[in-house]
């Protein structure tokens, strides 16, 4: 009963605060409102779990998850090492690099481009994570197979985006470079690639999420006894949901942090682009 009242009070008060914040001055409200909303959801979750005595095996309270994070820091660190540093990072680098090189090759050869591009966009509509069991069979249980899945998953988005980016140069600019007598490598390095950077960063950001998903799902198919995907599936089966939530919180933090880091690099590298000029 008291839990119900608490939730009701939280909901009413929270909506009031949110409405007030949303009407406030733009700079404050743009930051404060989503933060307040997040805090409200966490508070309601905590009250709900405690007030109704929700069993731990259904939904642990945020405080229990925080405790699990604090308790299992070494485990989380080991999983981070295995999944992010060993599987995701090399796979992402190789996949994006190969996609970019392939895009440049397609850009040089119109025949290849007409042949590969339709297949590439087909491939990006396919559930590529499904290759995980095959990669586990080929490359074994350890990080190599996860990195391989990540390579395949990140290749096609980069290919398609980079081709579109290399294509985005205006005819005027190309003509200008031709009138300078620029060679192909010169026009590629000085005009086409810089111009494609926003597209390439788009793919890099998209791929950072895809890579995490690929590595985690590939771990569901077999792994040494470490890794985020392994931890999530085994602890879920053992009903240690607070640890599962801790891993999910870490996955979310890693995903958002890499996205934010890439966005910062993008800003620094493509500062000249209209979308960053005020």
């Amino acid at each position, binding site marked *: 009963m008291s839990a119900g009242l608490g939730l009701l009070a939280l909901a009413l008060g929270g909506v009031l605060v949110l409405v007030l914040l949303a009407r406030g001055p733009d700079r404050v409200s743009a930051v404060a*409102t989503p933060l307040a909303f997040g805090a409200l959801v966490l508070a309601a979750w905590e009250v709900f779990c405690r007030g109704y005595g929700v069993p731990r095996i*259904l939904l642990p309270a945020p405080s229990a998850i925080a405790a699990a994070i604090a308790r299992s820091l070494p485990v989380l660190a080991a999983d981070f090492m295995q999944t992010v540093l060993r599987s995701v990072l090399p796979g992402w680098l190789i996949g994006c690099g190969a996609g970019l090189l392939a895009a440049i090759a397609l850009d040089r050869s119109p025949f290849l481009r007409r*042949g590969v591009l339709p297949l590439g966009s087909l491939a990006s509509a396919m559930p590529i994570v499904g290759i995980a*069991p*095959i990669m586990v069979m080929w490359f074994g249980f350890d990080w190599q197979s996860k990195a391989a899945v990540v390579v395949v998953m990140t290749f096609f988005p980069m290919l398609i985006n980079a081709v579109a980016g290399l294509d985005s140069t205006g005819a005027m600019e190309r003509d200008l470079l031709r009138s300078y007598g620029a060679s192909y490598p010169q026009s590629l390095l000085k005009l086409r690639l810089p111009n494609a950077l926003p597209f390439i960063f788009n793919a890099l950001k998209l791929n950072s999420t895809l890579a995490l998903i690929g590595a985690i799902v590939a771990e569901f198919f077999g792994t040494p006894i470490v890794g985020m995907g392994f931890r999530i599936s085994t602890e879920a089966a053992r009903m240690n949901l607070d640890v*599962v939530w801790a891993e*999910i919180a870490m996955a979310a933090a890693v995903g958002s942090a890499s996205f934010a880091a890439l966005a910062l690099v993008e800003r620094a590298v493509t500062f000249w682009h209209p979308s960053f000029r005020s």
Partner: protein
Amino acid sequence: MRHHAVPVLVVLAVVVVLWYAGALLLNFDVARNLADENATTWDIAAATMSQGRPVLPAPHQVATELFESVFMHPVNSPKSLVYHAAVTAFAAGVGFVFAFVLGIALAIGIVHVRTLERSLMLWIITSQTVPVLAIAPMVVVVLGNVGLTGLLPKALIAGYLSFFPISTGMVKGLRSPDPMQRDLMRTYSASGAQVFRKLRWPAAMAFLFPSLKVAATLALVGAIVAELPTGAQAGLGARLLTGSYYGQTQQIWAALIMASLLALLAVGVIDGARLAMLRARGGRL
């Protein structure tokens, strides 16, 4: 279309040739160990094309497996790939419909209510940078604890995944009319509902279909992954899992190709709907 046909066919042919070459290379060691002593290299090479559990099945083996599991069993038997595909497709479809309704409703709310926009938009965008698929095993296990198994957990995960692209796409689309057009509506003294029906909604359609395509693929991936943690009995995910447990590579490849065909079918249906709407509107979306 014709313009692309020859290059695409050439590239496909190269892929098939490379695939055969890969099968020859990857299966060669196993084939040599299995072959008797006076087998020639040619015999071993021929054997790499017809192993029971090849490291990489040759294209014709996959095609045979696909054909047999699709056409040689009654559709409702667990040996039929059509049956598994239908289980997965149904879960993905139910999830997709959930996501469609909810995603559009939320987008409408966000565009019209400032509080909703300010509270939710950042979280919706952030959630796209988060590997949401990681929660799949937990959702399945937890719902299993409260007695919900089978379709619902899968549909929930599929819906949850496909919800985000739909809602972000629709928010963008509903906001896409430029100030001039909105001013014009104001000079007509159109009500909010009229602006929505005559301006915002039609303008959003150009954004809806690309996000629906992304969402359909995600729904399929979600349904497949949701079948993994419980060791599900049916579905393409279950086929992948049992295939990987028992080393049935041909089964894995057949399931993969089936999943890709499903994805293509979904994208095709959405494209068809887009074309129908395009025609109904006289060629503009």
